[in-house]
């Protein structure tokens, strides 16, 4: 089995949530908030929330969609916001632009709902990301598997989902290293296709481990 020249370095991540000074009480205010809030806020309510609610595998994908459904009862708009697939985005600017477009288009098409008061306010928050190396690395597929098994949900999500923003590529830390450092393009691609919306982080990790085991058996 091949050994990588550049090892995979496992990190742990902790997110500090900052409460912003912005809130929305209507869909029009949500649209305005989406325009003005920080990138860290867009990240918090989409990538970060998907990680902390990963155990909900149906009907929950980001805070904006959840608020629109629960507090304004606008199912169609909630569906459209929920349908924005985070894996399609490598920058928060693109994601913000689409979120704004979806809400603004809806408000333009349904002006009677734009200024209707919601049951609860939407509070814009931000994530402050703090990373620390875990002190273990992987040079082989075996070591990689062992490190993967040890990761917490937050760190697994950091490497598997939010890494797309850091890499600015439609892939993740795991797949990138497996393809570039171990030459395992097929495995890398299979891992990248694991659906984080219909899997919990635990079941996504289990699938990943099964794919790695299959690869190891194939090479044995």
């Amino acid at each position: 089995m091949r050994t990588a020249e550049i090892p995979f370095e496992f990190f742990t991540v902790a997110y500090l949530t900052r409460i912003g000074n912005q809130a929305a009480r209507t869909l029009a205010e949500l649209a305005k908030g989406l325009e003005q809030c920080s990138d860290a806020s867009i990240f918090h309510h989409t990538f970060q929330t998907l990680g902390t609610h990963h155990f909900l595998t149906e009907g929950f994908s980001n805070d904006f969609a959840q608020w629109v459904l629960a507090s304004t009862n606008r199912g169609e708009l909630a569906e459209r916001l929920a349908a924005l697939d985070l894996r399609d985005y490598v920058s928060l600017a693109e994601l913000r632009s689409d979120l704004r477009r979806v809400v603004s288009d809806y408000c333009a098409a349904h002006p009677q709902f734009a200024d209707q008061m919601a049951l609860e306010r939407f509070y814009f928050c931000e994530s402050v990301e703090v990373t620390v190396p875990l002190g273990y690395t992987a040079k082989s597929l075996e070591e990689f598997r062992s490190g993967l098994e040890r990761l917490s949900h937050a760190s697994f999500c950091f490497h598997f989902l939010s890494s797309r923003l850091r890499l600015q590529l439609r892939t993740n830390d795991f797949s990138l290293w497996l393809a570039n450092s171990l030459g395992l393009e097929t495995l890398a691609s299979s891992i990248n296709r694991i659906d984080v919306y219909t899997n919990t982080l635990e079941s996504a990790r289990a699938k990943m481990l099964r794919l790695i085991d299959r690869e190891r058996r194939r090479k044995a």
Partner: protein
Amino acid sequence: MTEVQTAGRVRLDAYAAVIGAGEIEELRSLARPLRGKEIQMVNSTAVGGGVAEILNRLVPLAEELELAIRWDVMMGGEDFFEVTKSFHNALHGSAYQARPEDMEIFLAYSERNRARLTLDAEFAVIHDPQPAALIDARKDHAGHWIWRCHIDLSQPNPTVWKFLEGFVSRYDGAIFSSPEFSRQLLIPQYLFHPAIDPLSEKNRDLEADFIAGVLARFQIDPGRPLLAQISRFDRLKDPVGVIRAYQSVKRYFDCQLVLAGGGAADDPEGAVVLNEVRHEAHGDPDIHVLELPAWSPLEINALQRASTVVIQKSLREGFGLTVAEALWKKKPVVASAVGGIPIQVIHKHTGLLAHSVEGTAYQIRFLLSHPEIAARLGEQGHQHVKENFLITHNLRNYLALFLALDRAA
């Protein structure tokens, strides 16, 4: 000031069975860069109340991460605590007639405590309004000072808030339990949800025999559905509304109701509410109104675990951690959409929200008719608590905060 010796130490590794060994390993990694830096927690009581309960668990866990943490308690006389109780209620929005001597008493005790306490830690976390004025002890912007507010400041009495804001605005940051509870401040505000301890007596697993014993002691039939609200007897918890919802459900389901709580013995208003509840329940042997002693964690745990549906029909609520306790036990919850409850009960995902007696009754009937949906909500609720509302998560938040402050400096 008195340094508190924590009791009932639970080893950090014991939590591995609950959250996984990987999570524990990562807490150690996050703590490593903070070793050698002093952390100080200050609050106003060593026993009783949610803050002391959290610190009693949090401080030993931080020590196991080899952090130099200490916990000090502010000393005050009866007059000080009378003033701070009025402040507390006023900050929650209750009526308050400002008396200049109140501020003087508050400042005098703050000064005495500043003189007694060494306040030179790298990270000082000051809990709630009582010790907020200790910020005056800070020398030349040394260290990082954080104010942890455990109460709801959404509608504070303006006089008390203005007085307190003068101190709060000099901190490096403030922590709130919900965005809704925060204020417009110029300092950074952080969100830390309150947390439960899965290994405490109130939340740990119990033997089936023990639960059966508790039910027998209170003459509750284990063979029929049990609805329960565990809360002190307070009008804001709407116990009479719970009875009315139960009565509506009872027309379709042969169920029982438990209303269990403390607080009536030393609270005149609690005693009045308890009488109202008993009056409303009169004549129905399936309504069990239980006035529990102030500290009955195992009984509360058993009643929650024995319940078919747990209710929290509050009219106003802080964070409402009894909801997290029920969710942790995989119970389907029907709760009011107030305070911090919607953060815990994500409607149709981790429980059901209601806005009225009728809505509460309907949601209970729905869950009793669909046990498979009730089980799914309970399971997802458990996962939600595991991911977001455990004491280990609270510890991780503090580590993230200290690391972020340290790196920014």
